[in-house]
């Protein structure tokens, strides 16, 4: 009887919150969050371009902060909250960033897009009205080879305006009731 190779042994088990839902997952303990998301949890929306922390394609939010999931061990994520591109839309509605990216041509091949979307979300959550320079700064760790970034900046700004409108409307509705 062959010995089961160590790399196949799913001896690690972790519970964390993935896109608002609690998940339990067993995996080989050497795996990164990126690998566990894609290979053990079937969440292939998060991409990879280097697996060395250089390109930003694998960015996800860990407790609301952007991290490079290729540099995070899945074991470190116990009890924490992970948000990926799959968790951006809400009640079947795209997040304003997603709508804006699609409308503004901010996604060409779409490969760096998931990482940029979650990074931009973290920016807007922390700072609802970033300047163009703050947007550039926030996205400077996410490489995009297709767009030249400008339509990405515009999409973030368009989403920013839409979110501000929605927030204002919500406040008004609440205020009126």
């Amino acid at each position, binding site marked *: 009887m*062959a*010995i*089961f*190779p160590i*790399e*196949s042994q799913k001896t690690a088990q972790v519970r964390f919150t993935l896109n608002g839902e609690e998940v339990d997952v067993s995996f*080989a303990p050497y795996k990164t969050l990126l690998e566990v998301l*894609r*290979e053990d949890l*079937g969440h*292939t*929306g*998060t*991409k*990879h*371009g*280097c697996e*060395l922390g*250089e*390109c930003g*394609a694998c960015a996800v939010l860990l407790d609301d902060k952007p991290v490079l999931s290729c540099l995070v061990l899945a074991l470190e994520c116990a009890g924490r909250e992970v948000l*990926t*591109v799959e968790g*951006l*839309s809400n009640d079947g509605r*795209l997040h304003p*960033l*997603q*709508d804006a*990216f*699609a*409308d*503004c*041509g901010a*996604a*060409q*091949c*779409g*490969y*760096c*897009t998931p990482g940029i*979307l979650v990074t931009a979300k973290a920016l807007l959550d922390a700072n609802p009205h970033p300047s163009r320079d703050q*947007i*550039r*700064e926030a*996205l*400077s*760790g*996410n*490489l*995009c*080879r*297709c*767009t*030249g*970034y*400008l*339509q*990405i*900046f515009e999409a973030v700004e368009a989403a920013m305006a839409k979110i501000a409108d929605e927030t204002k409307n919500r406040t008004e509705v609440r205020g009126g009731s």
Partner: protein
Amino acid sequence: MAEQEEPTKSLPIVDSQPSREGSRVIGVPRRRVDGRAKVTGQTRFADDIFLPRMAHCKLLRSPHPHARIRSIDTARALARQGVYLVLTGKDLPIQYGILPVSQDEQALCLNQVRHVGDPVAAVVAREELTAFDAMDLIDVDYEILPTISDPEEALATSAPRIHEYGEEGNIHKQVALEFGDVEQGFAEADEVLEDTFFYQGNTHLPIEQHASVAIKDPDGKLTIWSSTQTPHYLHRALAKVLEMAPAHIRVIATPNGGGFGGKSDPFNHEIVVAKAALLLDRPVKICLTREEVFYCHRGRHPVLMKFKTGVKRDGTITGVHLQTLIDGGAYGSYGVASTYYAGALQTTTYHIPRYRYEGCRTFTNKPPCGPKRGHGTPQPRFGQEVQLDKIAEKLQIDPADLRLRIVENPNTVTANFLKLGTVNLTECIQRVVKISDWKNRFRQLPERHGVGLACSAYLTGAGLPIYWNKMPHSGVQLKFDRGGGVSIFCGATEIGQGSDDMLAGIVAEVLGIDPFDVRLFTGDTDLGPVDLGSYSSRVTLMAGNAAIQAAERGKALLAEAVSLKLEVPKDRLCFDEQRVFDSTAPDRGVSFAEAICLAEARFGTIGTVGSYTPPKSPALYKGGGVGPSPTYSYSAAVVEVEVNPITGWVHVPKVWIAHDIGRALNPTLVRGQVEGSVYMGLGEALMEEQEFRRLPKRLSHALVHKFPSMLEYKSPTSLDMPEVVTELIEDPDARGPFGAKEVGQGPLLPIMPAVANAVYDAVGVRIDEVPITPEKIMKALAEKKAGREPRFGPDHFPQIKWPEALRVPPPWEGGDGNAVNDTHREKPHPTKEKLLAP
């Protein structure tokens, strides 16, 4: 190269050039049809495919740049738990390559490795990590061979040969063409300038690493999903190497996470996983590491150039002589075509009455070079446009004015027999001059600030296929559904450029439906008719014209059925807003779905086809297959720079670019292509380089990639990207679908020379080399300070023994497109595969 024969007479394309007012889809900025998939992370790239029982493959790659393989022992690896299979060169001995004339690759090297990263064995295991580990258990006995690191060394070293074919020694390909007596041209000139330039190699750096998944289908056939720009050519290579009937192979090009030309060759890893899947009867996946992507390469060739140009005092060009020495790397790839391309497009921008081109591509022990955005043409365009800047200064003419004087005319046949379509270069120049306030900035900005201008042209699709055939270059099938939907089947490959959106937009426009009503089945060799691939900026023009033809044919069937039903003449019917109605009484009509039902009841199942074959080129000489295109795009750019004389750092605050696109089908995507080209051009101009170095002798003296990582291979980030003002010149070209010309590659070309020209305007030094790094600027500034020539660039062009040039008299000297001295020329043979143009 073979001369052309009359292409199959293509069915007439129904004239469909609706006015802008009539367009509901074309010309309107629009969310692309695949936009939602991309922003939700649902676009399924090759590495996103996970299948039950799937095994993982890794390639063991050579650590030596040049060596003979004495033996390979795989026993220990095979004994490793979790390893299913180990393959070596003897399992896949048949050679292949993208061009019929350079079938010089093996999926796994059999006897010889030619660059660091050349694969020698493949391990397939249950886990990827097992495959990684098992690679260490393969024992390869190498006999180290001398290494050739650059073309001059290749010229000087005839043995050992990297390949046993080619011109001689380590020269892969030499080209010599003369269109008119260039010496006569120089004799007539008032000034003759001679300059040498060097263009460093760089790589595509798509964010998606190449990946492939192969399976043996339940019925025993082969299916492979792969990040490829050219599923049709991969299909052919697989059939050849695996010795399988093409009918039993299905290639599905998954959407590419960026291509830029880097996924246009059939790759060893694709062939290996296909073989492994067939042997194991289980799915096999490979995804390359970033380091391996650098070894796949096929990127920009490093090119040393010598430009000799004669001009009259008024700027009129009397003759150009271009010589290139091209670093091909270890394999042929597209290199023969690249060598021709390096000399092909000089004549498309300005009138050059006499032109001579000599090109030489050598093999070196580095990853193979190939087609990157602009394929073969950015290097000579850099030299030509920087030299024009020098000429303008010498003649004391404003560089923009100089160019305006010499712009080539539309619908001209050039000295090298390229037939031009619309040429709006004049408008491009005028537009960027205006919007950049050129006249008030050039030579007038404060010290350290400068502006530079440059222009370019590019193909809208290669006029000839890669292998000799008379069939269409693109085909589209449409299936009309009773529910009102239309399905498009086409081999066109989505690499991010928007080919799916282009097809949906065109079909929706012709049929008066919404792009959302269209379903797409693309990039699949089993489902759709052949489209040759996403290269040479060919898809919009070729697949687009095929789509128009298919849609017009479907529209004609629907119109006939509706005409009978409504008793309205066909020519009075209008297709709009998902209805077919009487244009004189819009209330009288049927829904688009009803129109399909009426047509189906009358004619049976409704499906139509369309195809496109480019027009015949007048370039009949050997080598004339590279360069022809149905029409060419034009660009002009002004780049502003700030140069720090203390650090040599170049900051680019703003770029203005005008692009002659014919017609923008979806302006949102067009702008993205222009800005993406500007971005990539700035990367090439300022920082990107595929560089190699020798390890210290005590280590091995091997030639290794200097920095095969994204961190060290510098590319522009969001912080580096300047403001870009894009202007589109829309003058529909009748050869393009709805008048469209290309935009994916052309706008990259003027950026590098415009940066160099701007640096000169800013600090008065010529950097005749890209990338223009701070170090080079500092060296040139030091030269300037020392009173020497304020320049950094190559100081010589080596003596090369050129073959006798093929002499082709230009059209204005009575030439008919043939060479007058081509005695060895074979008669074209339609059944024999020959190299044509990619």
